[in-house]
């Protein structure tokens, strides 16, 4: 299952709630303002690091670049639009709006 998060964790519960429901092997893609969750040294970093033992995190490159987000949590991989499409093709999507 591919969970998509498009809100900043500082604005919305989406990321925290999603992680409560995610199952081992699921993929979480941060996009739009959701990419603020990928930043290193935030209060959400420990949560993401703990969760990355059971789920895989991606963040959309274009959205990171647009927001000047360079210093990412080490467990989060950057993905371009092609990779985004591949993820959507390969998984059932659960959008946490």
């Amino acid at each position, binding site marked *: *299952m591919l969970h998509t998060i498009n809100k900043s964790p500082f604005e919305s519960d989406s990321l925290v*709630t999603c992680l*409560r*429901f995610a*199952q081992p092997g699921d993929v979480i893609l941060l996009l739009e303002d959701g990419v603020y969750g990928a930043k290193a040294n935030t209060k959400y970093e420990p949560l993401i690091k703990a969760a990355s033992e059971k789920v895989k995190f991606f963040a959309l490159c274009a959205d990171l670049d647009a927001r000047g987000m360079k210093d990412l949590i080490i467990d989060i991989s950057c993905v371009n639009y092609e990779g985004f499409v591949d993820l959507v093709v390969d998984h*059932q999507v*659960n959008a*946490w709006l």
Partner: protein
Amino acid sequence: MDEPKKIMHVVRKAPHGSIYAYEGLEMVLIMASYDQEVCMCFIDDGVFALVKNQDTSGIEIKGFMKTLGVLADYDVENLYVDQTSLEERGLTEDDLYVPVQVRTSDELGKLMHEQDVLVPQ
């Protein structure tokens, strides 16, 4: 017609501040009337949509308590509620207007995997 799909509507927003929950409920009834296997899952502020004694006459919104009551007539019998979301908001099953199935987040996460389609609301 194709086999009915298992469709879960995931309600995560409070009822009256935005139109999501109301429009979402309309969508549930439409899908159910096409004989799809529809269920609903209430998470986060979505659980407030189910609270008893909502009187929307003062804010001039139609409200949807009556619509919730007829879901069973459309064979939408499975309304799942996230236990953590209830507890975080000081609610129990007794505070809710319709019969629901309270489940842990992990149980609901597994149930999401069994669906053909997840519709965010």
